[in-house]
């Protein structure tokens, strides 16, 4: 029996894709380049997409990494930065040579795939954008090699210019060659901190010291202050950092112009969430990671390679592990595409549970009510814990006296998305990059529950903040334009509901579609 047709629904509307690609690789770090090169070598047509160089405006809001306003004006010259990045990633040459369609300075801002609430798509679609326009490509398979991003952890003064993250520092010094600092203090004496110190020393940047709340920090050639907490940051911009033992003793200041927060980094799992791939919290792999069978994600045709699949001290020290996983992902994708290849088996990542590092940091620093947690939305610790509305709203303090995270937890398991909407923590322009992990940890700590028992707050498109003008720069298909309505197209919904539905009233008679508005 033929179904009727709802002209204002998504049915029969086309969203153009510029081309359909057998394999897309997201991220041109070691894993992504290795994956793209291997897949091309095996005969697949491959597009490799990487967002760098990103717009300097994004760097200014710590997207995708915490750049801490320590990037030179050179980053405003995107052409020059493109050359710089190609020079900083010599392995890209192999991708060019292998015939990979390499797209640098292109954001992968969305992926739309079939799911329980989305059946109408012609096939899997990837949203791409540069600084002027946004477009879609279709894809058959995708290797996500999106790397890791910075772990934001609060301390008094972490919202000042000059506080950056380990990935931001690595990008500023290595990828962009645009770091403006001269003297740094590194927070975190683990593998991420060690990598920062090594990179700084290789670049001739002075390292005044390394600070960690935990008693760790062997293998450093610079002074390590283990068992210290941050008591403040000197200057309106970073001029130094004040530290002390938890009991207040041993207070000293370390001079620096930049503080690099390198307690840890976090696998970048946003694309997996958009794709509907299952994720789990695994402290030993750095937090939320995709559920995988080898390199295969829970959704067929999606593969995870490199840091976004999970980190360990070994992966932070040795890019060979990421490269191997990239090659394995390429071979798996090729095999699934019907090519005759031998698949690699990868050794699982091993290492200590990294979750306690976050908790220890927050236990040491979440001691004052005014500690800034969400910087974009200016949510201090007390407002998060008290589930208070944002400061621009007037509210009855007496009513809220009996409301906090614990009373909310008594009504049902705490969900970070609910906290976002109530307090606005994580709702800002950085898209929650600087606070989502620590909000999760704080919620778990308040409820005396495992960190992973707090559900992962959802990721939504666009995965990068894109201007309206960029998203608007595409050619819409005529059937989308002609049958556009703000809300369904049910004519009787728009006539008085105390009167019977008028005779003969239809979508066509009411809106007369096709007339140019």
């Amino acid at each position, binding site marked *: 029996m033929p179904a009727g047709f709802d002209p204002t*629904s998504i049915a029969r509307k086309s969203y153009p894709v510029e081309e359909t690609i057998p394999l897309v690789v997201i991220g041109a770090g070691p894993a992504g380049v290795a994956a793209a090169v291997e897949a091309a070598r095996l005969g697949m047509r491959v597009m490799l997409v990487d967002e760098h160089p990103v717009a300097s405006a994004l760097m200014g809001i710590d997207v995708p990494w915490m750049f801490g306003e320590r990037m030179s004006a050179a980053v405003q010259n995107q052409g020059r930065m493109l050359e710089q990045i190609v020079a900083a990633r010599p392995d890209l040459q192999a991708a060019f040579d292998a015939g990979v369609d390499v797209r640098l300075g292109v954001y992968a801002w969305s992926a739309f795939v079939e799911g329980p609430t989305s059946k109408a798509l012609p096939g899997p679609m990837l949203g791409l954008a540069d600084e002027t326009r946004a477009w879609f490509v279709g894809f058959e398979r995708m290797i996500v090699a999106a790397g890791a991003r910075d772990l934001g952890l609060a301390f008094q003064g972490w919202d000042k210019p000059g506080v950056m993250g380990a990935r931001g520092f690595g990008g500023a010094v290595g990828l962009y060659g645009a770091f403006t600092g001269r003297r740094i203090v590194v927070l975190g004496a683990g593998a991420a901190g060690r990598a920062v110190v090594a990179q700084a020393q290789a670049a001739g940047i002075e390292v005044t010291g390394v600070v960690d709340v935990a008693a760790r920090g062997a293998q450093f050639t610079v002074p390590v202050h283990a068992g210290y907490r941050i008591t403040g940051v000197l200057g309106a911009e970073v001029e130094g950092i004040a530290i002390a033992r938890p009991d207040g003793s041993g207070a000293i200041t370390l001079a620096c112009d930049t503080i690099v927060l390198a307690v840890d980094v976090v696998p970048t799992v946003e694309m997996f969430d958009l794709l509907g791939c299952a994720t789990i919290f695994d402290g030993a792999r750095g937090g939320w990671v995709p559920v995988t069978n080898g390199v295969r994600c829970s959704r067929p045709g999606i593969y995870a390679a490199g840091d976004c699949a999970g980190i360990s001290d070994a992966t932070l020290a040795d890019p060979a592990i990421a490269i191997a996983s990239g090659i394995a992902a390429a071979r798996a994708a090729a095999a699934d595409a019907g090519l005759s290849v031998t698949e690699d088996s990868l050794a699982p990542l091993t290492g200590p549970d990294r979750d306690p590092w976050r908790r220890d940091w927050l236990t040491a620093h979440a001691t004052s009510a005014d500690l800034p947690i969400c910087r974009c*939305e200016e949510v201090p610790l007390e407002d998060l814990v008290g589930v208070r509305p944002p400061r621009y709203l007037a509210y009855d303090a007496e009513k809220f006296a009996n409301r906090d995270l614990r009373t909310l937890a008594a009504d049902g398991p705490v969900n970070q998305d609910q906290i976002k909407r109530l307090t606005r923590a994580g709702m800002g322009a950085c898209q929650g990059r600087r606070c989502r992990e620590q909000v999760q940890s704080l919620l778990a700590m308040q409820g005396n529950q495992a960190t992973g028992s707090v559900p992962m707050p959802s990721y939504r498109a666009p995965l990068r903040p894109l201007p309206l003008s960029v998203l608007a720069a595409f050619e819409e298909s005529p059937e989308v334009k002609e049958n556009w309505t703000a809300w369904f197209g049910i004519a009787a919904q728009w006539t008085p509901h105390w009167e019977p539905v008028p005779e003969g009233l239809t979508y066509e008679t009411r809106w007369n579609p096709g007339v140019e*508005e």
Partner: protein
Amino acid sequence: MTYHVAVIGGGATGLSTAFWLRHEAKVRVTVIEKGIVGWEASGRNGGGATHAVSPLFAEEQRLWPLMDELLGYPTEYQRQRVRIGLSRRQLDLILEGVTIARRQGFTAHELDNKSLRELVPFVSETAAGGVLLEYGGHANPQRTLQAYAWAVQDLGGDIRQHTTVTGFDLAGGKITGVKTDQGTIGCDAVVIAAGPHLAQLGAQLGLRIPVAAARAEMVVTEPLPLIRFGGADGNGVYGRQTLRGNLAYGGGAHEWIDLPDAKTPKPVNSPVMQSVAKRVFELFPKVAHARVIRSWAGVIENTPDGRPILDRLTGPDNLIVASMSSVGFGLSPASGRALMQLATKGACDFANLSQLKLSRFDTLPPDWQQDAGWVPWSAQETAA
């Protein structure tokens, strides 16, 4: 206090009903919610409170300015709206809606381009004009939903989250209990305000409640300087500037979906979100640089005529069925009060609900959803 009303659904309509049942009727109330209160479309929508076609309109307008005080928690309610027509035709369609409000005694002022841009400086010099409504408004859906829930609790109401209805106990033509996966809740009356899940729940009672579920989506930008009337929309998108300054707008093609069980799957976005952004860009070209930072989607239900069902049935005679047919948030202060009256008095004394009975669909053909095309559609299946 013995009379006990079970409200199924912790969305805008159900929570408001529970609030009024405690606040005004002062009866016992239990809200049964399968997930978290305000989690679905009730907590994520355009936030509009301007529904002149509804018999609840006057009550909606009367109540919204009182809600912060009544609930005790902020809703971010803001009065008035600006409707923008980029073309003469868009403006004419806006004026059709305004006429319906004017007939009910509400006022609105037409704006030429210059006065429009004074109120909404994001608009271009080429916009045909606009209308400033001296009625209507908008609020923050999530904050409002939590306010309802907290107010219900403060008034002694019981909210059971993460509780799924599995069936009903009937005796003597009445529902005597609501069966859930957490045990049976005895009751004297039941209000079903379960949005897209109404059809399934009705079927458990042998009733056909014709609603179809669809997914709709919105986008939100980074904060911008506040404009005088944040409830400014037009050009095929509805929405508002939040009090924080974000532009939150939605519209365009919806997607009809299947809901096979009591769960609501996570509603995803689609390429339609880019078309929404395109229309916001056209509406507000002066802030073309504003970055979209988020999008979201929600699942809503529609009845065949797009109008609510607000009805106390005769069999079972203590059952009240409530669907707002995809337009529930803004009307919720009034719909909840009407439903409170249906549950405790049997009739609503402040609004004409005569056209909103379930029985108007008695003669609907069994395949109405197919006939209307209100069913999932697949490009891939169509191609194959």
